[in-house]
């Protein structure tokens, strides 16, 4: 299947909110594609619009937020689909797991009831078969003594186990795309690693694609094929993960990489990015990153640079991508 149409294709997605007499863009013209079996990472600071982008894909965004643009899933625009048809896609073809396993499970239903409900809605199983399958699923996501734990309530599970249970519920219908909204952020580091490995293992087994939202570059490096870096509601750089880490071509990505320690590299002082991202209400006219950027020139402040191809499979919205790349390549 060479160069098949992408499974998911988001184009010019805009999420806005009306406030204080104006309309502010929280997500401003995001376009991205996800191919079959691919893991796409969406990385950015808090408030960069990455979670909103993810939630807009399955129309989880409620008024007063407004969504415009196109989200094509196997050629169908999900943003225009009637609710009943959308519900046939949700859960069955596209599943979502959330950041807080604490709140994403219904506290008054047992874990088993919630898995069975998902199975009942999507798999066509019923009766004893459904319970057996639920136990198998729970076992599959790595819950020890699944048969005994299936009648437990979520509060009887630890954080990592809850995340596993949520994954079991999400994957009950064997979806083709998993949207993971910071699935490991609320967990401690060792559990993070286990959950990521679990997601990757299930991805391989089920032949899913995954969109992984995170603010953790380590998570990206460990699990993604391709990365899109978001800043102030836009994608500023997009590239295969190895290329992006080795040779960033946007000043912001460069700043991100410089601000975290990388294992296996020579020790060097960390350089945090000065300042904070601009609020949607007072973004500068040109490049949103310009006020915090060491490379910025007058050109950056005039107009927002477009996201253009700067290398093979490598998109960047930085006027100085060559300088950034050249400096990154220097030892």
């Amino acid at each position, binding site marked *: 299947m060479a160069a098949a149409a992408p499974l998911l294709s988001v184009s010019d997605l805009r999420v806005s909110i009306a406030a204080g007499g104006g309309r502010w863009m929280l997500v401003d013209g995001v376009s991205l594609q996800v191919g079959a079996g691919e893991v796409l990472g969406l990385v950015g600071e808090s408030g960069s619009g990455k979670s909103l982008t993810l*939630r807009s894909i*399955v129309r*989880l965004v409620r008024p007063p937020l407004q969504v415009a643009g196109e989200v094509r899933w196997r050629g169908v625009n999900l943003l225009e689909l009637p*609710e009943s048809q*959308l*519900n*046939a*896609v*949700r*859960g*069955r073809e*596209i*599943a*979502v797991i*959330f*950041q*807080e396993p604490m*709140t*994403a*499970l*219904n*506290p*008054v*239903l047992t874990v088993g009831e919630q898995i069975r*409900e*998902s199975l009942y*809605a*999507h798999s066509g199983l019923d009766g004893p078969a459904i319970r057996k399958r639920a136990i198998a699923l729970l076992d599959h996501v790595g819950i020890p003594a699944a048969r005994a734990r299936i009648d437990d309530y979520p509060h009887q599970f630890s954080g990592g186990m809850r995340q596993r249970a*949520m994954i079991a*519920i*999400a994957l009950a219908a064997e979806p083709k795309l998993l949207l993971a909204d910071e699935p490991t952020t609320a967990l401690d580091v060792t559990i993070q690693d286990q959950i990521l490995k679990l997601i990757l293992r299930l991805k391989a087994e089920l032949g899913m694609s995954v969109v992984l939202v995170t603010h953790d570059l380590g998570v990206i490096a460990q699990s993604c094929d391709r990365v899109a870096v978001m800043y102030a509601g836009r994608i500023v750089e997009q590239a295969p993960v190895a290329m992006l880490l080795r040779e960033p071509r946007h000043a912001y990505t460069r700043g991100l990489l410089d601000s975290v320690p990388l294992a296996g590299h020579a020790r060097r002082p960390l350089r945090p990015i000065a300042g904070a991202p601009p609020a949607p209400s007072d973004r500068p006219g040109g490049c949103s990153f310009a006020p915090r950027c060491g490379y910025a020139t007058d050109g950056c402040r005039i107009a927002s640079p477009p996201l253009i191809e700067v290398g093979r499979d490598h998109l960047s919205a930085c006027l100085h991508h060559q300088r950034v790349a050249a400096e990154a390549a220097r030892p």
Partner: protein
Amino acid sequence: MSVLAEKVVHRRRQRFRGSLVIGLVLLGLFLLASAAPGWLAPYDPLAFDMSAILKPPSALHPFGTDNFGRDILSRLIWAAHIDLAIALFTTVFPVVFGTIVGAFVGYYGGWLDMLFGRVVDLVVTFPFLVIVITIVSVLGPGLLNMFIAVSVVGWVFYARLMRAEVMTQKQADYAAAGRVLGYGQLRIIFRHLLPNCIGSIIVYWMTDMALGILLGSSLGYLGLGAQPPTAEWGVLVADGKNFLNTGWWISFFPGIAIVLTGLGFSLLGDGIADRLRRGR
């Protein structure tokens, strides 16, 4: 420090058990009375006994007799099932209807919420008792009309409570998770949100049943609720109002029964609330 904390925790647990248990015992007592009045009551509640008119409490008549020589204790016991029925029927429609309406309003919001807001305004503008008395006097006195009057007004309070609960719960991730699992809206409202919101409804319901009995008794006293010679606690209190100087016991014991039932429901509600809080 920790010993002290333990003591505090211990005492709190004791208190919670207390209110739940006392509430259950009180209500159990009245339930028993209403289930088998003939078995518990020493006399026929309607039988006149001209040889024992206006007798104070004694071994023969523990709560005394009224101006027709009827045994107060027996009348009290026979009245229990009417008052418990009042507690139930003044609230059951408001609970069910109000909960459902509140769930929809809270979930969908928008123009439905606007409309609901106006209805609430309309109802809460009038004092509760005044509007109920108005409706009853239009429909005519009697228990059934009283149930109708209370139901017309009472559901609003449950709906308001439920609306607020659903509005908070629907923000939770598990509601979003339900939506992205492709579940229908009705399923999310009734299977996922409602059980998470029902706690406060139940607690309010218990208090409301106590108020229902008070209301039933008040209307009975005013002659708008249960009609004599039906034995209803409010009617019994009213029976004694001309004899307060000579036969205080005629009004006193039914009054105590009203207080104890109300207390029973309140304690039960408290106990359930405590339990729900601890379960969280």
